[in-house]
Each structure stands twice: as C-alpha cells, then as structure tokens.
C-alpha cells in the first residue's frame, strides 16, 4: 500500500515538472523566432537560476548547513576571482573555490578547538 502511494506521488512530481517544459515548447511554437518574449524569458531564467544558486549557497540544507556562512561566501569569491582573472577557465575557478573551501574548513576546525 505504501509502495503504491510512493509511485502515485512520484508520477505527480514528474508531471509537475514536465508541464513547464511542455508549456515552454508550446509557447515557443506559437510566436515568431525573434519575438522579444524569448529575451524576456531568458532574463527570467537567469533570475530564477541565480536565486537558486544564492539559496543553495546562503541557506543550504543538510551537512552544508553546519559550515558557517563566511566559510561558504569567501571561497565563492575566490572561485569568481580564479575564473575571471585567469582566462575564464571553469576548472581554474573550481580549483580556486574548492581549495579556499578546504583551507577554511581546516581553519574553522582549529578555531573551534
């Protein structure tokens, strides 16, 4: 019985996501190719994704919530610096960010002792 219910909830969750994709395709087929709506919805997408990134960084859940905020924000700044100062290479940004993150985790641990 519980198994059965889990599948029903799951199927509704699938539909609740796909309906947005469906709407996106449908609307795109009904307007001309260089309609300003495309630019507007791209702006919306950027805004929503940025909000999502900010939320996962500032208000995380689970294990990450135990890491103090400054230990998350400072490595993020390092990641941006690594990326933009050294030729916009993704891997460089990630290495900068993760290295700062690991170092601050150790610093945080020492100051907690």
């Amino acid at each position, binding site marked *: 019985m519980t*198994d059965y219910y889990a599948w029903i909830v799951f199927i509704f969750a699938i539909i609740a996501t796909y309906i947005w994709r469906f709407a996106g395709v449908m609307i795109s087929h009904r307007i001309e190719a260089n309609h300003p709506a495309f630019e507007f919805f791209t*702006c919306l997408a950027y805004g929503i994704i940025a909000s999502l990134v900010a939320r996962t960084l500032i208000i995380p859940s689970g294990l990450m919530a135990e890491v103090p905020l400054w230990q998350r924000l400072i490595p993020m700044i390092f990641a941006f610096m690594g990326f933009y100062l050294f030729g916009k290479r993704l891997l460089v940004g990630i290495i900068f960010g993760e290295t700062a993150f690991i170092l601050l985790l150790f610093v945080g641990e020492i100051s907690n002792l």
Partner: protein
Amino acid sequence: MKGLDTNLQALLTGIRNAIGVPALLLFSAMTGFGSLAQEQGLSLYISMLSTVLIWGMPGQVVHVELYGLGAPLIAVVLGVAGANARFMPMTLSMMPVFADSPHNRKWNYLFSHFISINTWAEMLNRGHEIRADRRVPYFMGFSATCMFSGVIGVYQGYVLFESMPDIVSLCLIFLVPIYFGLIMSNTLHPPYLMAFVLGGLLGAPMYLLTPEWGLVLSGLIAGTISFLLRNVLKGFRKSREGND
C-alpha cells in the same frame, strides 16, 4: 565547432564535451540527492528513476522531502511545480537554437525533457558554433551523458554517502553553487548579467519569505526589471566600449 559532418559525429562530440566538468557536476550534485533520498526512505529504484524522469534537482529534492514528511499530494505537486518552474522560461528561450534544424518540431516536446541548467547554458552559449542541422544530436549526446552520470551519482549517494568522509561530501556539494555561479555569470548580454546579479541578491531573502515560490518570485522581479532596462543596459555597454 569542427568535425560535425554527420549526426553520429555531432552526438559523439556532445558526449565528449560533457565528459569532464559537466558530468562531474551532475554526478556530485546527485550524490547529495541520493543520500537525501536514502535518509527520507524513498526506494533506490524511484530515486534513480527520479533523475531520469524529473531531471531537475530542486524539484526532486522537494519531492523527496515532502514525501518523507508525509505531506498531502497537492502540497507535493505545488512544491515541485514551484521548485522546477524555471523550466518554462529555460525551454522557451532555448527553442530558437533548434529553429533551423530539419527535424519535425513535434520532437521538441521530447527534447525539452532533457534540458537542465547545464545543457541549457551549453546550448545558449555555444549552440551558434554548431551547424544548425547538427545541434539536436549534439544536445542529445551532451544531455544523455550528464543524465547518465547523474544516475550513477544517485546510486553512489544512496549506497555510499554515509561512509564517505565529511570533507569529501562537502566539497562535492560545494561544487554545485560554484559551477552554476560561474557558468551563469559568464554572459556577454548585459540584461542577462543584470538578471543574474539581481536574482542572486533577492534569492535568499525571498526564499525565507515564501519557501515554495520564493525562487520564482525573485526570478520574476529580477528578470522583469532587467528586461525593461535592456535598452538602457545595452546603450550603456556600447557607449563604454566607444562604439556608435
């Protein structure tokens, strides 16, 4: 991009370009999801299928959390819809990339299922470098590779997460905001950059205000302001660059 003479070559190039940071990112993000699903008592089978059939991590997380809490079905539907609403603007804005492709446009309803932030950013930033008739196979190769590594990530998270050292798990989780922060900020189009900055500032406070629809709301505000100011922003950029 060169060497895209056949659909197969385009598919393989898509796969090759996804192997590396994009696939690693999906893998690590989904390990986090896998461990959460295991904690909340969702079966491994549904957890892995969730990545294939929902394919949008915030909605997947909401689904698992609300299911774990035993929330009513309508709450799950609204929660997932709110968390994954970004797919509407994302799908809509990506469709012009496929506009000159020879396929029947009805297939777009299938292709849209494979869109994720990863693949969307890839197609928006680099789609124009690919021949119009090779974009679909490239996109499918890229997306399927990301999805495949995501499914492996769920499995690994579900089965192994608790035996991994905390520092490894934390680094994997931290990869997600870094990666999306960097690829999304790397746009040359001033209104998009402004939407990104505004969304980043509004995201957390709006989420505290209403957890279910906060992200959509802050995206709506950020996106609308940036869109309305687009001509001002573009003019500013031109005058700064000294063009006429």
